[in-house]
């Protein structure tokens, strides 16, 4: 009943919300490709990357991801998938594969 009224009044668009799919992409990343965190990234510039990632995770501050992208590039990251993930606009939620990999929370698909 609510759904029908919502559709009629235009409060709900008829197409389904694509958010679940975006969340899944953000949380699980590419299932078929393991994320390789470079051994020197975390210690680069007195642990800048680690602090940034922790801040983003704890404060849910996903608008800082482009800064993290710049830092990663400075630390010698050349992985386009990681850099694009930081820089391209997209939906980011807690559990994001890149932040989890950097913080060593877990591998995305183990």
């Amino acid at each position, binding site marked *: 009943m609510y759904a029908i009224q919502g559709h009629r009044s235009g409060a709900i668009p008829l197409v389904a*919300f694509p958010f679940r799919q975006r969340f899944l992409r953000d949380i699980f990343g590419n299932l*078929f490709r393991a994320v390789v965190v470079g051994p020197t990234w975390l210690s680069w510039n007195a642990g800048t990357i680690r602090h940034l990632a922790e801040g983003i995770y704890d404060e849910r501050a996903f608008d800082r991801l482009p800064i993290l992208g710049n830092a990663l590039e400075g630390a010698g990251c050349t992985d386009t998938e990681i850099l694009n993930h930081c820089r391209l606009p997209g939906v980011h939620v807690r559990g994001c594969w890149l932040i989890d990999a950097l913080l060593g929370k877990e591998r995305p698909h183990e």
Partner: protein
Amino acid sequence: MNEAEWLACGNPETMLKALRERASVRKLRLFACACVRRIWHLLVSPNSRRAVEVMERFVDGQATEEQRIVAANGAGVLVRNCNARVLPTCGSRGQRFTASSLLWEPSSATTRWLGGGGPPLLGSWPTGSGRRHRTRTQSPGKGRQVRACAPSSGNCAVRLAAGRLRQTLFGRRLSKDRGERLWSSRWHKPPTKSVPFLMVLWRTHVSGVLADALEEAGCTDADVLSHCRGPGAHVRGCWLLDRLTGRE
């Protein structure tokens, strides 16, 4: 499923099926939390929000099992009593299911997606004796279904809260003839059914403005006025709002 199919896949349910073997519990829980956070503004009870926050701490080991169970029970009261109504029209049906499965029903919707008895996401089925609650679920495609929920945990506080909520939803003493009187009385304006109107009505209802307006229009029904003004849990789907908007 191979890499190209995964990258091109646009259907979240297919994606979840592909994840069945690979996803960790932590990631799945965070996914459910993200889905609920998306409809955060529609959660009317602090219990629902607390459950998500506790879950997010729990996955990182910052909350204990007891805290998780308490939060799940608190949120479960709402889900049991008004199920689809607390999480109303916004989002897809799957999102609502995710939300309710995160908060209460771990083994139904989410594991149906994942195809098998996975671990519970936030709640676990309560143990102990208690009478069975029957919950009405509305699913747009299939009409109304009546689904039996798990027995209540036997926790007194939870039961009291559930009773209070049920009273708000269905108006325990609202007899049929009072409903009709309300319906035909002269102060009642013709029902406006649009969702934005309902949202406005909802806010005024909660803040007590509605009671003043009704009184001004000539309403003298003590039950109606005290319901608007009195303390207590108000949820979307409340009997008075449903009457006024001609829903039930």
